[in-house]
Structures are given as C-alpha cells and as structure tokens.
C-alpha cells in the first residue's frame, strides 16, 4: 500500500466525519446543537483510536477516543459489539466529561471483520438535575447534575431498547429535544458507517486496517518532530481558579510539571489541588483534552490530527484531584478547570519555546442566564457565553474580544435579544486598559450591560478570573480581572461571579466587564508607533 492510497483513504475518512457532522446539523432539534454547534463527530480504528474528526470545539477534540477506549477496556469489550449495535454513555466516570455530553458509538464491519468505529458527541440542552440546563453552579455531587447513563447498548442487533429510551424521557426537562438530538446522533452513526463501508468495499478490510495504522504513525511522527524541536528539560507552572463557587474565596491550584525528553513529553499534574466541592472538577477525558490541545497547537500547521499525536505524550494525574475527580464529585463546569489547565500548560511551554507561546487568554467561559418573568407569569430564557481578550504573542499583540482556548463561542445579536424578550442591552464595547501591558499588548476584554424590562428576572452566572488575573509573560503585565455588578436605583453593587437565581427587578442593570489577555515582554520596550496607536484608538 503506497502513500497515495493512504492519502486517499485519509481524505475519505475525514470526509466521512464531515458527512456525519452535516447529518447532526441537518437533523438535530435543539439550538445548542445546531446554532452553537456544540457537537463533534469522529472516525476511529478498530481499537478505538481516533483517525479523523470534525470538530470546532477544543474541549471535545481528543476526548472521544479516550471515552471509547475506556468503554472497550472497562465496560463492553470490542468482541461484544455487533454491526447493528449502538453504545451510548454520558457518564464522566465512565470516560465522559459532564452529563450534558452524550457520546454514541457504533462498530463498523466489512465481511465479518471489525474495521472501525464511528462516534458522535452532542451537548444536550438538559439532562435533568438541580437546574434547568443541568448547569447548577452550586451542585456538590454528580447526582444533582442530572441523569447518568452508563455505557449501554441503546440499540442491540438493530432494535432500540425502549426501556432505556423511556427512562431517559422520564428524567429530563425537554424530552422531545433531547431524544430528537439523540436520534440525529444515531442517524449520523449510520451515515458514517455507510461511508466507511463504501471505502472498505473498494480497498478491502486489511487495507483499511493498514491505512489506519499508517495514519496514526504519520501523526505520531509529526507530533514527535514538534516535541523534539523543544529543548529537553523540566518546565513547571501554576495558575489558579478563584474558587469553586461553594467554598467561596478558596483558590484552586492547577499545577503543571512538563518534562521534555527527546521526542517525548510527560505531563505531571500531581501538584493540582484535591477535587473541589463545587462543580468545577474535571475527569481525565477533560484534562487530557486540555493537555493534548496545548501540545498539538505547537505542531506544524497541516499536521493530521489523530490519536497518533497522543502517543509521545504521557499524562499523570492522581485520582481525587481537581483534574482527575473521583465519583461522585460534581463536574458540570469542568470547562473552568480545563481553561485554567490550558493556561498552566502554556505557561510551562513558554519556558521551552519562548518565541511561540502567547501570554494567558481570559481563561473562562462567562456564562450568564437571564430568566425574565412577565406580569402574567410568562417566562423567557437567555443564555449567553461571553469572552475576553487573547494573550499577547511574542510577535503580535493579543486580539481584542476573541474566542480563545478550550471553547469557541459566538455572541448573540443584540437586536434579536431585544426583539424576543424584555431585556435591553444598554452597552457593548471594548474595555480599554484591560489588556496586559507589554512589548506586545494583551487583547482587550469587553463590557456588556443588560437592563431588565420585565417586573422580575432570575439571574444566574458562572465565571472566574475575578481575583487571579490572566498572567503576562517575559516581563509583560497581567490583564485586568473581570467585574460583575448590579446597578440598582443609582447604586452599584458587586455580584458574586458564581451565582444561582439572583432576583432582579425592572430597571436593574447587570454590567459584566471581562478580562483581557496578558501582555508579553517588558512594557518599556513597546515601540513608539504601537504606543501612539494604542493612544489614538483608546486601547491603553
């Protein structure tokens, strides 16, 4: 088998993942899947290693292979999968990340031989639990976060398990949306399996397996080359979450010890805090995704991203820590830990390749939820995820208001919000001075204000970086931390950044100011033109 056939198969597998992606997009029901595009699809080899994926969200990337391998190793051995079975799970303690993410996998056979798996991951709108959206800020155990589905065959021999289906329906807030989206995941698996079988019919089972091996080897070689280009050494760095929202004011440490030795990297996370009471914990699937993402960003552009990239990277994380939580720790906001872990990884990598790594980005998802209540009791819900500035790069300023790191979100049009519910956005602008000073300036955060126009409104927030600011590098300064305020009758009151169901009334204004990114290099060395420009544009 030559390089041409490998490339043809690699292209076709990537196209299969793209067709699966289009299927989810075409057939899903909820806004979170179709409009926030919070889903991913992938094709795996016969052992569960990821060969090709279609994904837009870094926290999904590189986590699905982990889940499938866990399922095969601990729950349903590969030999027990038939061609017409589909296995699903959402359990963080069985290889998943948090309960809203349901993973679905199907084995693909050609002439009796298992040649691949197809998989999809969707963030579902609600899986039950303490709060609508299954995102409670104050949950302290996973049982409050929603329905746990252990790895099980939701379809066995082509027949749907109606008992499981009914049990899901009984335990969640929006059953039609969830089951609609789950059906679209299943349809997508069929599309992926058909595309892989079409390929196998042309090339044969043995060639498919051989091509998979060669694809993994090529990715591995590319990743090893990227690591080998870094000087050997041990690089340590730490960063902090402000708190878990339950034990307020108690910081959580994310510590990385990165060892580069030849073409291999070892990441020791044993310096991280013990698992937290509140829901900011990560399981291994989440923290591994952050570590892999940090290192894969250092590879040459154009490298094919597959599980081969993971081979030269070893992650060690003690069980019971915030990056490898033990059941039944709450994990709904696992994105918080992964944002900060990525910040810490980049701080360590900066010591190895100081000319390539940017200073800290804002490092969190500014989640706000407004539930307006009209005089007649009618309710409307708005969920927004805001962002801040990206960190300054050794060769470039950071980017103002730029979706960075582990998530990748869009904002919601102001005019759409105002046309649909009793809220008015009274300000949306950049936040001058919020980027860390440096030879290269950090990107600016932003300010967004919402005014309540209904008699009542329940406000929920979950955000971080209000105490521990995004760091600067190489003498660059930290960015400004965020602020969250309520303006009521002319008074300004600070609002805790992790808040469930704060009562607001008509005329109240919530004002969020997000962090910028850290600066890079000594601010004294910033050149005159850049300073003049900052001044002219009012950035500083």
């Amino acid at each position: 088998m030559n390089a041409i056939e490998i490339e043809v198969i690699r292209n076709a597998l990537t196209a299969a993942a793209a067709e699966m992606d289009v299927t989810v997009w075409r057939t899903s029901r909820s806004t979170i899947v179709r409009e926030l595009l919070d889903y991913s699809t992938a094709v795996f080899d016969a052992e569960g290693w990821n060969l090709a994926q279609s994904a837009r969200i870094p926290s999904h990337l590189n986590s699905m292979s982990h889940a499938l391998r866990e399922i095969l190793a601990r729950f349903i051995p590969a030999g027990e999968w038939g061609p017409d079975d589909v296995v699903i799970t959402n359990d963080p303690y069985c290889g998943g990340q948090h309960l809203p993410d349901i993973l679905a996998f199907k084995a693909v056979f050609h002439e009796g031989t298992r040649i691949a798996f197809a998989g999809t991951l969707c963030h579902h709108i609600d899986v039950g639990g303490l709060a609508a959206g299954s995102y409670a800020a104050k949950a302290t155990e996973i049982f409050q976060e929603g329905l746990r589905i252990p790895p099980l065959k939701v379809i066995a021999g082509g027949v749907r398990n109606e008992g499981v289906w009914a049990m899901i329906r009984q335990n969640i807030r929006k059953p039609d949306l969830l089951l609609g989206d789950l059906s679209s995941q299943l349809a997508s698996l069929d599309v992926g399996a058909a595309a892989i079988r079409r390929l196998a019919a042309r090339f044969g089972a043995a060639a498919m397996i051989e091509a998979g091996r060669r694809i993994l080897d090529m990715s591995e070689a590319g990743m090893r080359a990227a690591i080998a280009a870094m000087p050997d050494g041990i690089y340590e760095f730490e960063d902090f979450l402000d708190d878990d929202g339950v034990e307020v004011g108690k910081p959580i440490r994310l510590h990385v010890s990165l060892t580069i030795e030849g073409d291999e990297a070892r990441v020791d996370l044993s310096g991280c805090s013990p698992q937290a009471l509140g829901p900011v914990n990560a399981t291994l699937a989440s923290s591994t995704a952050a570590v892999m993402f940090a290192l894969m960003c250092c590879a040459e552009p154009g490298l094919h991203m597959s599980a081969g990239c993971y081979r030269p990277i070893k992650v060690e994380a003690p069980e019971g820590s915030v990056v490898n939580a033990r059941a039944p720790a709450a994990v709904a906001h696992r994105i918080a830990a992964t944002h900060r872990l990525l910040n810490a990884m980049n701080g360590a990598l900066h010591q190895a390749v100081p000319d390539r790594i940017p200073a800290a980005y804002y490092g969190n998802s500014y989640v706000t939820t407004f539930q307006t209540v009209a005089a007649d009791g009618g309710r409307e819900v708005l969920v927004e995820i805001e962002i801040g500035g990206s960190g300054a790069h050794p060769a470039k300023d950071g980017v103002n208001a730029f979706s960075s790191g582990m998530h990748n979100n869009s904002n919601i049009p102001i005019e759409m919000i105002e046309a649909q519910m009793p809220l008015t956005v009274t300000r949306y602008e950049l936040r001058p001075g919020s980027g860390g000073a440096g030879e290269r300036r950090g990107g600016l955060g932003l300010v967004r204000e919402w005014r309540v126009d209904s008699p009542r409104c329940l406000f929920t927030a979950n955000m971080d970086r209000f105490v521990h600011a995004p760091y600067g590098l190489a003498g660059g300064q930290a960015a400004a931390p965020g602020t969250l305020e309520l303006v009521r009758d002319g008074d300004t009151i600070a609002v805790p950044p992790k808040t469930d169901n704060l009562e607001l009334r008509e005329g109240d204004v919530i004002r969020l100011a997000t962090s910028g990114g850290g600066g890079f290099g000594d601010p004294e060395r910033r050149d005159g033109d850049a300073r003049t420009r900052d001044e002219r544009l009012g950035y500083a």
Partner: protein
Amino acid sequence: MDQPVRIAVDIGGTFTDLQILDARAGRVQAHKTPTTPADPSEGLMTGVREAASHFGFALSEVGMLLHGTTIATNAVLERKLARGVLLTTAGFEDVLEITRHVRRELYRLDPDPFPCLIERDRRLGVTERLRADGSVEIPLSGLDGLMEKLRALEPEAVAIGLLHAYANPAHEEALAEAVRAALPGVPVSLSSEVSPEIREYERLSTTVLNAVLMPVVQNYLNRLKARLGEGGFTPRLFLVQSNGGMCSLDRAAAQPARLLLSGPSGGAMAAERLSRRLARPNLVAVDMGGTSFDVSVVQDHRIGLVTQGEVDRLPVRLPMVEMRTIGAGGGSIAAVDAGGRLSVGPRSAGARPGPVCYGRGGTEPTVSDANAVLGRFDPDFFLGGAMKLELGAAREAMVARVGDRLGLSTEAAAEGVMRVTNTQLAAAVRLSLFEKGLDPRDFALLSFGGAGGLHACEVAEELGMTEIVLPREPGTLSAYGIMFADLVQDIARSRLLPLEEASLPAMEETLGALHAEAQARLDADAIPAGQRAVEIAADLRYRGQAFELLIPWPEAPALTPLLARFHATHRARFSYADESERVELVTLRASAIGRLPKPEESRDVPPGASAPGTRRLWTGGAWCEVPVHLRETLAQGVEVAGPAIIEEAFATHWIAPGWTATLDPEGAVIARRTP
C-alpha cells in the same frame, strides 16, 4: 434593428472574457484579451474593439453591454478603500470590532483579528436609541457637536448604522441629512437602505463596506462612462451583482456592496441556462480554475440563493448565489511531509509563479504539472498557443519532490497527485448535495473553468455519477451566463412577527411598501410594463431558532401555502418538521425583475470532419497513443471512446477509459459512463 449586437464581459484576474451575440446571425462568439489591472475599463474597450474588427460589427451597433467586474472585491482585498467614518448608537461603537468572535483556526497560537475597515477613533457615538418595534426610547440629539467632530475627521465616505434602524429609518435619515449639509459631496451610506435586516453586526459590516466602496466604484464607473461614445459606442450598460442578476450604473454607484460577491454569478446564470437548454433539471455545477473549486447546485433548473456571504472574513448581508468553495485548483501544490504523507493543497502556486510547467519560476509541482506529466496537455498549444509548456521541468519537480520521496516513478507520482486531488473535489461535491439531502446519482456534473474538463470523469466516478457535461468555451462560461441575465433588484424589510392571521395587517403593510419600492426601482430603470415581475419571499423559522429558511411566496399574502412550503422545506433540509410549533417571520423580501430581451442564439456547430490526431499519454499504467479531437471539428453523432482528449483553444478535456463522449446539438460535450 439598428443596434443588434449585445456584448457580455467578464473581467478576471488574467483575462477579460467577452461573449458577443449578433442578433443578425444569432450566433454567440467568444473573445479573450489580457486584463489591464490598473484600469480594467481599458482592457474592456480593447476587447470590444478587437471583437468588432474580428467578428465584423461597428461599435455603434452595440446596443447593450453587460459587465461583470471584480473591482469592488479587489478594492476590499487590497484595502484600496476610501477613508470612512462610522456613526452609530452611542455605547455600541465597538460592535464593528467585537464581531461575532468565533475563531476559524482552532490550533493557531498567533491569531489575527477579524478585519475592521473603520478603526476605533473614526467611529462616533450618536445620542439616540430605538427599540425593536421601531419606537423611540432616546430621541436623536447632539447633532451640532457630532457634525463638528465628523468634519474634523475629514471623511471620504460616511457610514450610518443605528440599532434597530431596519424597523425605523427616521433617525438614520435625519442624520444623513445633517451629514450631507455638513459635508456636501461626501457619499453617505445608510444601514436602513443598504441592508435593512435585523442583526446589528452583519448589517453594520455591510453598510461600512458599502460606504468605503462608494468612491472607488464611482471612479471606475466614471472612467468607464468616459470611454463610451468613442466611435459611436453607446450601449446601455449593466453590471453583474452577487444575486445572479444585473443592475444599472446608478444602482451600482449607490450600493456597490451588491457587486462584492458577483464573481460566481456568471457561472451560476450559465448553469441555469444550460440546464434548460440541455433539458437537464438537476446539475451540479463545478468551476475549477487555478486556485479554487466552486460547487453550486441546480435543482429543477434553479440555482439556490443565500441571504449572506462574506469577503475577506467580513460578512455581507445581501442575497448571493449559494456556493461551496474549496482551495483546490490547477495551482494546488503537491508535497510530501516528514512523516511521508502526500498532500495536495491548500497551498497554491497561484498565477505567479504558477505551476512549474509554466516556466515562470515555479519550483513546487502542482496539479497542472501532474496533468502535464501525464501528457494531457499539448505543450505547443497551451492557452491556444499563448504559452509554451516546459514538460521537462515539470517531470523533474514531480520526481524530486514527490516520486523520490515516496519511491514512485514520475508517472505514478503524477497519477497519485491526480487521485488525491479528485477525491478532494468529489468530497466537496458530495457535501454540497448531502447537506441538502440530495443524492449525487440523481445529478449530472457540469464541469467548467480552465481545469474543469481534466477532472470531470474521475470526480464523477468517485461519486457514482454517470454523466458529465462539458460546455463550449468552458473558460468563458461566466460571460455566457451574463449574456442572458435579467435585471434583479433585491429589497428587504426585517419585521419579527409570528406567522399567523393576526399579523396579516402588519405583513400586508410591509408587502405594500415592498411592492411600491419595487415598482419605483423598475420605473427608474425604464423597464416597460410587460417586462416586469416582482417575486416575494420570506425568511422564516421555528420560534427560537437562530437562523432562517428563505421561502418563496408567490401567493402573498395568503398564509396557508407559505406555512405548508416552510414545513416541507424544513423537512427536506433538516429531515423533520413540527407543524404544532410556532413559525416566525423575520424578513420579507421582494425581487424587482426587469426582463431583458433574450435574442435567439443559434449554436450552429460547423460540420467538422477532420480526423483526430494522437498524442502519447500515460493511462492504464503505460504510455499509449491516444486520439486527440479538436472540439471545433468534432462532428455531430460521432462517439469518442475514452481514453481520449478533446481539445479547444483554452481548455483540454480528458475522456477517461470507460467513458464515451458525444456532441450535444447545443455544442456541449456529453460524456457517459459506459455501462
């Protein structure tokens, strides 16, 4: 018939393509001349004069000139734009810079910001605020101080975009009046006129683009007009827009943003026309040139439109032809990385230096070089003999950079590059159909552009398609499409309403306004009553969805058929419909169409009979003598069995083994997979 000649011109980066239709003979003929980038109107006039002497007509006999231009797009890409100022609602001056902030390159450590055409110190806040229903929350005030600041910025163009101006243009209009009084002669662009649609960032982006393009496009049109009159050359002039229709010069000068994505329009119009003339209602049209591969879908003889596109990552909220573009073309570079992986693209050698075989300094082998190595080009008759190909250099590059690294012969390496390319092209076609729920086997592949004929058979085979169509003069097909276009002016009004009986009065009011404006536009272009049409469509969604489907509404204002069509379209595209769910109207649209007379074209194909030549070509693992037919002399009814080459001045078509080609009465080559 004193002005029987109609000319369509498509100005590309390298060549200016002309198609000439002389109603006296009814024949469409093609001509090509080099583009003059400094002032494209110069090349245009050169082409017209050359065509006049070549085909024997007088300049005074030209009645209509239909013109496709990339002048607006290039001005944006090269940032040769006017110095603009933006006036927008105070507190929202940064919306233009904040954008929608989703990133495109996930792994990139040093991202670039989204482009922003008016910097922060040139965006001025206006004291005013409208609500979503168009009512006034804060009245417009402070104009005197604002005009002072504006004058100090010495703008060459002014963009005005206020929140909710789609619902009530009063504040924007009052501002515009103040600006015109303060800065006479400076062009002003209003969001409520350019793109009166809900979603502030997209509307603002479109308005700003429009403003900073106005002086640029006006200059070009002035130069063009100055050339009219030479030698009695006084045609009516129309320009191609992004929506697959034409517009008058006045309209183009006032709303140049409508020209921004007009590049694909010509090809799309040609695909629609060919779909009818060849009686093939379902076609996938693929246009492959040097750097890109564009896919559009003709279903039931019509190309789809979308309501938004983008140029250089800037959204343009105006109707445009629906198209999927991937960066694959003749110039795509083949390379082998350290891990032994062969990749083709996304890097491209472009036009400069171009493929190795062009002999202009290119050193990396490209897809065109692969074709050259396999013997598919005539090295002495490339681009009609305009360029000699350096086959030796292409072979050397192919073996040094691909073959040796993979342990393959030169020919096997070239074949490999072709295979990898064809699978990429096929994947793009499959996705374009798949996302609409369509099956490639129900379509024929219409392949054009300079490189379209070289890949069509193999791409079709990948997709299980059994018929390909290779139109005449595939390199100038866009100009052919332009030749038969109509004037189409799109008018939109956003109005968020539940789609139910109670909303009818409000909808009828908006419809009335749309119809009145449509007729006023047609009046302005002096379109006779018998050649007018107004088509209504609505952007609809289920309540809570964040995007809309564009649904035609010929029965307006009757609601039932509109609802039924929405549910059906939703089911076709997204596999489900929920008839119990509330449906929302977001935007109403009218297309004011002025039908231009369509002279009959006769495609009399000369009764060719010359015997085919042959060429040594690598196929089926060996060098073989393969027949080479000249398209101009190909006779009707002759069956050309692959492997074979059909050649014409600016294109080469590869008929692969297993395919048989014949000439359609229209002059198109139709090839079918031999059963």
